[in-house]
């Protein structure tokens, strides 16, 4: 199992979530966050914004689904401008469903 943490634009988060749901990946968690990337924030006129609001979409999927989820996120979150976000993939040892207490995703 892998955990996919996609840091995307807040306005793209819903379209990413809907796109994933259409493909059968309903389960996800949305976290509001602030951050900056390689461009060190953004300067509009004379104002410099150091940290920009972002949404983290966190989901845990089976290993063989990772590529499909990545493709969907890339397609839905893409605008071509700086600030489209990053996706991190980390290993998950186990997942438990609390209701049943079973070791299943």
């Amino acid at each position, binding site marked *: 199992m892998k955990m996919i943490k996609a840091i995307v634009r807040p306005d793209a988060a819903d379209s990413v979530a809907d796109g994933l749901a259409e493909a059968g990946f309903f389960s996800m*968690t949305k*976290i509001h966050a602030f951050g900056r990337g390689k461009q060190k924030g953004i300067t509009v006129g004379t104002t410099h914004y150091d940290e920009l609001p972002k949404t983290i979409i966190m989901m845990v999927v089976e290993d063989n689904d990772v590529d499909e989820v990545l493709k969907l996120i890339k397609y839905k979150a893409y605008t071509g401008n700086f600030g489209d976000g990053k996706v991190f993939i980390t*290993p998950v040892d*186990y*997942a*438990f469903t*609390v209701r049943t207490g079973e070791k299943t995703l």
Partner: protein
Amino acid sequence: MKEIIAIIRPKKVSATKSALENLGFPSMTALSVLGRGRQRGIASELNYEVSPSVSGKSGGMKYIPKRLMSVIVRNSDVDTVVKTIVEINQTAQIGDGKIFVCPVDDALRVRTDETGENAVI
């Protein structure tokens, strides 16, 4: 070391916290998150009325407010912590949440420069 990420009902947080405290795991990080599970979001798990305009046609809602708790423990403590969280949070209804166990390579306590397991205990 392992990171235990539990996504649970907001009203179960204090019970979970005190149970973990009694076991000797007082340190944790909590985040307020929104999410949905395999049932694609449901309104019935909320203990207050949701107006039809919010809940939509299907009777569900898109995202459900949840709490994400993250606890870092030693490998040997993973089973105890997971078992406790499961016991406290079971209501036998959908929406009880998920627990993920992820590996952690290293940790650092900023105050004392301790690394590894010493930083966690």
